C-alpha cells in the first residue's frame, strides 16, 4: 500500500446512518465487515456482517469486493 493511502480520507457514518443504509440496500450491494475478535463477534454482531479480525484484513482482502461500499466496525 503506497504511503499516500495513509492520507486518504475515510468516510465515517453514525450508527443511525449505517442502519438507514442497510435498510435500503440488498446484502449483495455492500460489504459489512466486523473487524473485532471471534468471541466478540459471537456475542453479538450486526446481521450479515462478515468477520475479518483487524490483524487478518490484509490476508483476506480478496474477500472484500472493491466495487461495493465497505462498512467496518
Amino acid at each position, binding site marked *: 500500500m503506497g504511503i499516500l493511502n495513509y492520507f486518504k480520507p475515510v468516510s465515517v457514518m453514525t450508527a443511525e446512518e449505517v442502519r438507514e443504509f442497510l435498510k435500503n440496500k440488498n*446484502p449483495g450491494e455492500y460489504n459489512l465487515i466486523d473487524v473485532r475478535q471471534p468471541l466478540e463477534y*459471537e456475542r453479538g*454482531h450486526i*446481521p450479515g456482517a462478515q468477520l475479518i479480525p483487524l490483524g487478518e484484513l490484509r490476508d483476506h482482502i480478496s474477500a472484500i469486493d472493491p466495487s461495493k461500499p465497505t462498512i467496518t466496525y
Partner: protein
Amino acid sequence: MEGGIRAWEGLVAEGPPEAGTVYFPDTAGAKELIGLAWSLEEGSRRFYSELAGVLSDEEGIGIFRDLTAAEEHHKDSLMDLLHNIAGAESAADFPESLADPDEARDVMEGGMRISTALQWAQGKPLGMILEIAMSLETNSYDLYIKMYLKIEDQRSRNVFGLLAGEEKLHLEKLAALLERKI
C-alpha cells in the same frame, strides 16, 4: 461506523460465523438447500402457530398468526423454486426425502428446538416471548444473508435473498409490537 458496535442500538445476531450454516453444507445442491430451508421455515411455522394458540393478548395472537401465515408463504416460495429447478416429479416426495424427518421436525429458524422454545414460553409474558422471537428471527436473517452471499447458484441465491428480506419485515413487525407492549 462511528462508535463501533457499542453505538449500534439495533438488533444483533449471535453465534460464530458458521452458525446455522451447518444446516446448509457446502456439498448440498440447490434442491437440498431448498429442502433444508423449507424444514426450518416449517419449524418456525409450527412454533408461531403454537404460540398463537396459547397467548391471551389479542395483538400478540394476531402477530403470531400473521407470522404463521408468512412462514407458510415462505414454504410455498421454496416449493415453487423447487418446481422450477427440478420439475414436479422431483418435488413429489419433498421434503421428507431430503432430511432426517424426526430431526428436521423439531428445528426451526435460529437453530432452536421447537420443543425447547415452547416449553420455555409456557407462562412467560408477551414481552419476553416477543424478544425471543426477535432473537430467533435476527439469527435467521443473519443466516439467510450469509447464505445469499455464499451461494453461487443464482436461483438459490435469489431465494435466500427473498427470505432475508422477509425476515427483515418480520423483525420490523415484532419490534413495533414490542415497543407498544413494553
